[in-house]
């Protein structure tokens, strides 16, 4: 397993986790440890075994195409860090 410190920064960026240099070093060590722990899986013969994504072997239910949720914008936006006139405020992304 050759995971470099640059890979750690790349993963952190994908996960949207800000990281100092020292935190990245720690994360690097932790990831190498975990990859060491899970390396055992590579030796297992899984030829012809279908991946099991879930404990239940059932397909998704369908429901009637009707409205089930009503607009509760004010209630749900009460928990928002910053809103204005029913909109969530974030830093400007388009000039």
């Amino acid at each position, binding site marked *: 397993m050759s995971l470099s410190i640059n890979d750690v920064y790349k993963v952190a960026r994908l996960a949207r986790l800000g990281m100092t240099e020292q935190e990245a070093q720690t994360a690097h060590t*932790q990831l190498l440890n975990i990859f060491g*722990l899970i390396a055992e899986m590579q030796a297992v013969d899984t030829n012809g*075994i279908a991946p*099991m994504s879930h404990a239940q072997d059932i397909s*998704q239910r369908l429901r009637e195409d009707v409205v089930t949720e009503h607009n509760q914008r004010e209630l749900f936006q009460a*928990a928002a860090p910053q809103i204005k006139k029913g909109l969530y405020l974030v830093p400007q992304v388009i000039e």
Partner: protein
Amino acid sequence: MRSKKISSVELTQLYLHRITALNSKLNAYITVNEEMSLVQARAADVQLAQSKIHALTGIPIAQKDIFCAMGWRTTCGSKMLSNFIAPYDAHVIEQFNRVGAVNLGKTNMDEFAMGSSNETSYFGNVKNPWNNNAVPGGSSGGSAAAVSAHLCAAATGTDTGGSIRQPAALCGISGLKPTYGVVSRYGMIAFASSLDQAGPMARSAEDLALLLNVMAGFDERDSTSLQRETEDYTRDLNKPLNGLRIGLPKEFFAAGLSADVAQAIEASIAEYKKLGASVVDISLPNSRLSIPVYYVLAPAEASSNLSRYDGVRYGYRAPEYTNLADMYEKSRAQGFGEEVKRRIMIGTSVLSHGYYDAYYLQAQKIRRLIAQDLSKHLSNVTSSWDQPLPPLPSIWPRKTMTQCRCTFPTSILSR
């Protein structure tokens, strides 16, 4: 209560007084709201006077702080949600409200249920009531400690890889992880969705059955909720154990099992035999692989579930940032604790290009091998021994891998 010896308000106040006296020591509760609890207790007393009663009407139940309860602060043990007031009720909370139970407060837990010792909570460690220098287990450690110390009549927990079973064992109470899909996950904050399952924690099997009767049931808002005939989980409580076959996976009794735990298990096996059960030795050859499989699948699902915490719609937002990406990165870096960030990094890694097939898909394939091991035996035995603690807790330990080996396999199949 039915014989009018005590009212729900009196019982609720009794527990609230005990919480006031003991919580500063045990830290089992994150949030207590006397007024909201007493409103429910008064309503329960009205119901009791009109004889409109269910077994749990007026009974004060502690709720793990992973369940959204309308108007209650719901933190999931995280700084990220430390100011989050839930705008709706989880299915589990609705079910307890429906029968007139009292929500006594929200119990402490490992942050986003990621931990096995309650040391990752943003709100501090929970202490084991039996020995304040020992951990209560986790992630449902607050619920386990609260039940054990008589700070509630019973409690709820959730279990992804052992988070009900292990703290119940460490605090000397009863806990049950139901079959996946029996209890709706609606309004239960997600960790690893294909494994998360809610269940009861209480002082006896009878109490567990009474709670599960309320918690279980089909809910269309959870797409994995099982559609089954309604069951009365109390139906077999007085049935003799004759004919019950208990499977003992030999892999759980191998190296790593400490002598005192082995002795306690042997004593309880003898007790089960005396009560009429028979014991069958079984083998789960792939069970050791449940550790690497769990450490791939659970973080992978968590990294996806926790991407919703971005500081935009709810939750923590960093006070200073330069642009949108910086706002995401700072809010998440400051709002999540170390263990949560570690698991997000693991999950993001195993799902990323170049690792997905070798780790994530391989783990899902091995998951099937482990499940097949268990299925083979479950047609033959009525229950398998899910013994959550090979080495007993010393002082403030983290859960060892040997403990995980015993709870992960059944999480994976979820029986």
